[in-house]
């Protein structure tokens, strides 16, 4: 509770400073919008439903793209971890591909899929798949051998050993992978939408620029931040905390 009030106070201060600076009229309002005009932009954006539609489209894309990444990434991670050969070959490739910014996939995506929904989903998948894969793989590698021994000893083998020992034992890494993957997916989507220009929040951002409407730009930025943050906090941080508590990975605090 205390944390929330402190955060609230901090953000209020930030807005107050922003207000003061914009009141000083150092820069013209079309370069430095006031909090009031951004709020207004938010109101009109939601009132004429353009923001709602943008959010809806972006969320649908992220759901498909991120969902695919999670399924493929976890599968691929376990597969690579299961074999030394794959680890040495495919594992290395995954690591080097991970260093590519996801936008690098856009030209390829456009060539393969045209200016279609598929292309943008492809960029999202390529942006987050690899970090899910790498973390899954690390999770499996870090599972203490003793859990597998104990599992086998108590009669778990094959699929049972995988489902009831290996999978839960790699949970802490798995969740970090999902969280990191989410962050990558969200960023890839927005940057993809900005260049690709076909609806969605990224597109709204570019539209604001084209119309010289700084208030709209800032308003959309705020929405993008809010969604990224809310999912991160409400979903992944809670999940992480629950696991950490269960496993006793938290300090006394």
């Amino acid at each position, binding site marked *: 509770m205390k944390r929330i009030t402190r955060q609230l106070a901090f953000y209020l201060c930030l807005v107050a400073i922003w207000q003061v600076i914009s009141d000083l009229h150092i820069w013209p309002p079309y370069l430095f919008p006031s909090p009031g005009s951004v709020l207004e932009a938010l109101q009109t954006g939601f009132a004429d439903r353009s923001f709602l539609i943008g959010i809806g489209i972006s969320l649908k894309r992220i759901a498909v793209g991120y969902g695919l990444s999670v399924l493929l990434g976890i599968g691929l991670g376990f597969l690579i971890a299961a074999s030394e050969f794959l680890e040495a070959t495919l594992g290395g490739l995954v690591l080097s591909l991970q260093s590519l910014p996801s936008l690098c996939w856009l030209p390829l995506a456009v060539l393969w899929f045209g200016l279609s929904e598929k292309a943008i989903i492809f960029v999202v998948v390529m942006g987050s798949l690899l970090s899910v894969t790498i973390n899954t793989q690390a999770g499996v590698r870090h599972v*203490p051998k003793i859990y597998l021994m104990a599992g086998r000893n108590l009669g778990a083998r094959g699929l049972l050993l995988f489902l009831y*020992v290996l999978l839960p034992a790699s949970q802490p890494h798995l969740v970090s992978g999902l969280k990191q993957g989410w962050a990558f997916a969200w960023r890839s989507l927005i940057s993809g939408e900005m260049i690709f220009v076909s609806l969605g929040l990224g597109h709204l951002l570019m539209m604001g620029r084209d119309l010289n409407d700084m208030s709209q730009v800032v308003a959309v930025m705020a929405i993008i931040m809010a969604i990224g943050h809310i999912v991160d906090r409400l979903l992944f941080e809670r999940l992480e905390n629950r696991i950490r508590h269960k496993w006793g990975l938290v300090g006394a605090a």
Partner: protein
Amino acid sequence: MSEIPAGPGWSQNKLRLQNVSRTFQTPRGPLTALEDISLEIQEGEFLCVVGPSGCGKSTLLNLIAGLDRPTSGDIWKDSAPVDGPGTDRIVIFQELGLFPWLTVLENVEFGLRMQGVSKAQRREQSRRYLRMVHLSSFESSYVHQLSGGMKQRVALARSLVTEPDVLLMDEPFAALDAQTRDLLHEEMERIWAETRKTIVFVTHNVREAVRLGGRVIVLSFRPGRIKSQFTITLPRPRHLEDPELALTAREVLAQLKEEINKAVEEEFRHEENH
């Protein structure tokens, strides 16, 4: 107390090891952890194994459990060759290996769950064993919330629940304080008397071995062979402070000391070479 019948009748042998050796391939060349171990363990016997660190005690238990395979030699249980793990032979590992993602009760249930026992039945059975180790009120705790001695008892309950006839315990009480250990000794002795399981109990504590075992085996250091055996006929219940127990322990210790010295010497030699 139950006495071992004279002459090891082969039908009463719960476990039989014949010329068992295990060699590991290591970066520094092959390492023979166990060599030519031949051993017969009677049904309901409480066998203690002592030996210096690194002599192959854990390896021996893993072999009997079927979690590892001998390089040569054979292991038999109830006159069937041991081939892979089975819930008739459960190890309580040195590191326990309790699952941190499960509650105490779920940990205990695990073996039954793998066997496909229905939820109601495995709950009931697991609770019975949790009562046996006096942990009923902790059934919904997670492992990290328990003390060392409590974890040991969860591991014990988890092993007993599948009703193995052979219990393989690897230095289970090494990390405990003296009082907790005393209590667990009594509990072990009671459970053994109640269930008549065949127990192979590894320890590096000679007194503990003599306190619990009907027979004590001393393993030699590298390669691990059976150096000597002692049959302990002291009446039960025993206590660590019993003077006769201390006397027997001294005999065993003399044997063990020789091996520990060898181990230390080898360690020195190894250090000099580097």
